[in-house]
């Protein structure tokens, strides 16, 4: 039996269809606008990551088809490769010492700059300028400054202080690299400066009224208020610390002297680079994946731990 829908009965169906097609159109437009990113992500991030995951289970030299070896590369890495552990130790050192020292130095510098009343712009520029110097040029400058007969050691000699061999000494090479990172602390410093200037004055006034001293104000007002920036700097510092390469490459003397002296500047990324040079792409991929997982784990731990010590104004996280 044929039925005829009245306009009232048909209306809800029409109303239902309209939103669905509208939603589809909206999704299509969003996808269209996102497509450059999606294509880029698939082609230049996801595909290389998955390919390198596959290569990490193979012997692969770029010029011949990969040969499946299962977990061999990972077993070799953890059980038989002494230079892997050497590179891990060096990298952990730079993360554990380099990152905190850099943050403390950046906070200290920013705090000093907040107190400068006259010519503050000039001082801020001066402290930020080293950041503009390319890493290679900055490192070469430090190689010159820290030469055993260079300016720094000349001053130390005049002061009757022992003069280290710096980049030529396994004991001093990493501290020298940390010194270099402190010189180019501008970016981190400028973020801390902004955070410090953003701390509400009323909080300090309230602390003053409570009789708080400078340390207490710093401990209970400044630190909590800039804790999100500290957290950000720690995460970024840890990520970059695990990927430390350029400065070590240059300071050790380049291609022919990678990791010297005595392997003290063979960082994880340097060892991975050497494996690529040997065309051990399978092993290099395994190293890359371990690095990725470690960095990911550290970041997750830091994020979890941040809930205990990072204070967000208004309680937002």
């Amino acid at each position, binding site marked *: 039996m044929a039925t005829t829908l009245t306009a009232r009965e048909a209306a809800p169906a029409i109303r239902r269809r309209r939103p669905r097609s509208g939603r589809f159109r909206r999704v299509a437009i969003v996808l269209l606008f996102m497509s450059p990113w999606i294509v880029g992500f698939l082609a230049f991030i996801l595909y290389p990551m998955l390919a390198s995951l*596959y290569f990490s289970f193979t012997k692969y030299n770029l*010029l011949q088809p990969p040969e499946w070896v299962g977990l061999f*590369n990972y077993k070799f890495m953890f059980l038989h490769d002494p230079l892997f552990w050497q590179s891990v130790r060096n990298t952990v050192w730079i993360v554990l010492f380099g990152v905190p020292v850099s943050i403390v130095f950046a906070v200290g510098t920013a705090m000093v700059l907040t107190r400068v009343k006259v010519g503050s712009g000039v001082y801020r520029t001066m402290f930020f300028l080293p950041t503009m110097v390319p890493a290679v040029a900055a490192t070469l400058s430090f190689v010159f400054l820290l*030469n055993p*007969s260079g300016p720094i050691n000349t001053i130390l000699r005049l002061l009757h202080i022992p003069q280290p061999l710096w980049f030529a000494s396994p004991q001093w090479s990493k501290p020298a690299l940390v010194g270099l990172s402190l010189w180019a602390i501008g970016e981190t410093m400028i973020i801390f400066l902004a955070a410090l200037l953003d701390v509400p004055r009323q909080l300090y006034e309230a602390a003053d009224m409570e009789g708080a001293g400078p340390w207490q104000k710093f401990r209970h007002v400044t630190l909590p208020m800039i804790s999100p920036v500290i957290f950000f700097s720690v995460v970024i510092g840890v990520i970059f610390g695990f990927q430390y390469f350029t400065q070590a490459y240059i300071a050790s003397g380049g291609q022919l002297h990678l990791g010297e002296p005595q392997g003290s500047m063979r960082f994880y990324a340097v060892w991975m680079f050497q*494996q690529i040079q*040997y*065309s051990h792409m399978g092993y290099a991929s395994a190293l890359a994946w371990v690095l990725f997982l470690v960095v990911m784990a550290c970041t997750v731990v830091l994020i979890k731990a941040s809930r205990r010590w990072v204070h967000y104004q208004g309680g937002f996280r």
Partner: protein
Amino acid sequence: MKRMLCVLASFALFGAACTAGGGSKEPVETVNPSGSHAPVTLTVWDYFTERELSNLTGVLNQFKQQYPWITVNVVPGKRPIDFVRGINAGETFDVAIDSESTNVPFYCSTGGLVDLSSYLQADGTDLSTIIPPAALKYTSYQGVQCTLPLLTDAYGLYYNKDMLAAAGFSEPPKTLSELTAMAKKLTVRNPDGSLKVVGFMPLSTFYENTNMYNGNAWGTQWYQEDESSAFGTDPAWKDMLEWNKEMVDYYGYNDLQRFFQQLGGPNSEWSSANGFEQGKIALLYDGEWRGTFISDDKSKVDFGTAAFPVADDKPELYGSGQVGGTVVGIPKTAEHPSEAWLLVKFLTMNTKAVQTLANLLGNVPTTFESLKDPKLANDPLFKPFMEIFQNEHSYLLPLTPAASAPADLFADFQGKWEAGKVSDLQSGLEDLATAVDQQVGLG
């Protein structure tokens, strides 16, 4: 979720398969130079830059005169990893000129550079009558001749004549014990005990010493018959490292490091701050090119050259040394392999071309005929290096597809040894041998 994982895995495998290189051997065609030809442009990837590039270009102009239908387009400044990436990516360059012969086993074993034996057979060329055996050895791997030599380096001893004469020596040392005694006598310290003049710098990281410690002077064996590392079994390694340590301890490790850094560190090797050119080092292990540098830097050092001293118990090795240099090959991705072969042949076997380049670059020529070049052969400072190259005991360290990995591992070990960080040398060498075998196994 499972379906998603399957899709991702397939994607990865597909991608990996797309990335993986492969390749089959193309049938060889040779070109009849006297016939008529359509114009061809060859693309050459080479590592030469600046002055050396213009020298190469001059020789390529000679090639152009001989083969007027071929144009050569040179892409300079290519490093070893660029060749591998280029071949992997299917770049259609026709000739590869690589500075490092250490990569030859990799190219030959993977087919990245094609086996030239078919071309040689087609031309009826017997390489053994053209190129000395030392150069044929480092340009091939396990019977595959995938490259040919384009000049070579040869390492020997440079000595400061004035310093030797002042210390009462009329001849350069021929044995390591003579070198040790001479080096000690030639060393001068400042009043504060620091080093003013070093007789012989024994640090492994100093200038070209890495090559010295490849062990030619001690007759070291890198691999055993079963191709496993011989670090733990060949006593020559222990002898060499003990000599190394004795010398370092004589000077003091820190004093040597300080002296080296005061010269300007590794970079001083390639500038007028070079310790030998400055008269701060009396005896120097170096390659044949140093003479050209000394002249270019206008150093006033009056110097002589000779073969490097050898272990006292192996006098038969005197006159030999390390050799090895630039290699030329045809990538499997070449668009014009037949014309590329003409160029490879020209650069490596044409006497005039080889001699021209050898004179311009100050390197040792690599064919029997070109070694007769009167200018080079009659130069008393260069002649020792020509002789070192032709010595039957001269060689480049045996290579593997792992390229410089074994040598890098040894350098790392030696760095710790000379700094006094290795307590048991024999045990350390055995561990090193294991590490080398494992690294080679990764390839």
